[in-house]
């Protein structure tokens, strides 16, 4: 989905682009705006090209903005983004969007790079009462695992669908949720991933007794 809002995009210099797992990259540039953890930004390679939206993965006070992305081979933007070097330029917007966190109890459920807004919330200090369930295909799909593991401990659940890995649940996040006897009724449930993942997980949570009023979804449009 294209996004040209809000306001004009600003030209910024890339600090780095790193490959952190197969096909997964982190792009960084100097932060020039205040934002709320969980928000998104628009990125484009030029002022003329329609930008795309990405969640911010860095904390609210971090010096750099971090963007986590997978390369979509047939895509126009991500193959080019992955090839950028320090000093190259991109066009980007300030943070926007309402998928922002809570200081209260919450269960964060992510698929793949859908971990980004939760990484931002976590890095911004939202840690108490948080459970993170992250789905990925392979062991290296659990981006930022070291940070989460250290603090969230048993409240950090990795669901690996393609390989059996010690310390991780074998299956998808929906398989994991299905395996639970009950779910917390007083928690908020934040979902981030593809529309299929968000819709399927939301349906499952509702089926298991969670009120839809406690579920918030962010979809990769």
């Amino acid at each position, binding site marked *: *989905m294209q*996004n040209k809002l809000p306001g004009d995009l600003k030209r910024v210099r890339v600090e780095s682009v790193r490959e952190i797992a197969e096909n997964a990259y982190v792009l960084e540039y100097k932060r020039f705006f205040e934002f709320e953890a969980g928000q998104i930004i628009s990125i484009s390679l030029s002022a003329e090209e329609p930008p795309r939206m990405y969640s911010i993965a860095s904390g609210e006070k971090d010096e750099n903005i971090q963007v986590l992305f997978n390369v979509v081979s047939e895509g126009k933007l991500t193959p080019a983004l992955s090839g950028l070097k320090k000093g190259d330029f991109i066009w980007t917007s300030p943070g926007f969007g*309402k998928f922002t966190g809570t200081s209260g109890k919450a269960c964060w459920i992510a698929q793949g790079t859908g971990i980004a807004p939760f990484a931002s919330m976590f890095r911004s200090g939202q840690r108490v009462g948080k459970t993170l369930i992250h789905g990925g295909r392979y062991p290296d799909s659990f981006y930022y695992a070291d940070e989460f593991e250290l603090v969230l401990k048993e409240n950090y659940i990795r669901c690996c669908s393609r390989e059996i890995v010690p310390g991780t649940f074998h299956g998808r996040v929906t398989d994991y949720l299905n395996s639970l006897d009950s779910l917390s009724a007083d928690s908020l449930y934040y979902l981030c991933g593809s529309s299929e993942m968000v819709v399927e997980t939301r349906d499952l949570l*509702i089926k298991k007794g969670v009120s*839809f009023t406690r*579920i918030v979804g*962010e*979809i990769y449009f």
Partner: protein
Amino acid sequence: MDGLIKEKLFGRTPEEVAEICRSLEMPKYAAGQIVDWLYKKNILSIDGMTNLAGKYREALKENYEIGLYPPSKVEESVDGTKKYLYQSGIKKFVEAAYIPDGERATLCVSSQVGCKMGCLFCMTGKQGFQGNLTAGEILNQIHSLPEREKLTSVVYMGMGEPFDNLENVLRSIEILTAEWGYGWSPRRITVSTIGIIPAMQAFLERSEANLAVSLHSPFEEERRMLMPVEQVYPLPEVLKTIRTWDFGRQRRISFEYILFKNLNDTPRHVKELARLLNGLRCRINLIRFHPIPDTPLEGSDDQAVQAFKDALNKKDILTTVRASRGEDIWAACGLLSTKEMTKK
């Protein structure tokens, strides 16, 4: 050349057809003839283009086909509504609903196979997103409709979010409204969106068709539970964009509002809607909820629907209740195609 997947001519603009003619070394005037055959006449094969020299028909057939295909299935309601199923790829189906109403007849067309917007009340969203329809595939739902000649209006309210497939939707509208195309007035066309602001702006700038916006709740917290898009494009921003636009006297802006029992059907909602829409020349269409499997939502009863309508009209917001049609034939959009898709 048997087995070769041929490109489709239907859905192309005169400029694109001219380019094909150039590449095949056909005379310039052939492009106009082909466009005429595509949109003004009823032919199903290139052989039917009888004013085109045989050698040019043969050259076209090497790599192209018309690209029209009939519905694969139809279900008819006792009220005359018909739901047509069109196949768009392997195990991919889209729906088009034909809704006759006295002298009028509306066709509700799809713009995508599945949808990625994930609205809580929508069956199509449960299919996931499977792809965009081309302009030709969108128009085929109209052109191949047995009742095509009876149509008085077309609404883009079927499967998919039209503004997530903006270029194909705009192109289909261009062909529908152009003199070289079907020559329809854009006032006979309405496109419905959940409010993707940049695409909505582009639509307003590049077409004259009517706009409908799915509203469903005037309150941000409530709307985002129903529609994840609210997180990215909040309703106040959508309305702000609409308010900057001069709709003139003919072009219509309307808001779709599905009524859910004890959720969005209270006097508080009436009051907030009146505040949000104050001064905007618009209409609200109230829609009864067609239940879908495993939904936590329940539709408001008839009494509540009527009360909500009356309350809004009292606030000087023109409000109508859309008649429920085709309830006996999987009326909720996406149900029939899901049923077909999951068939063993």
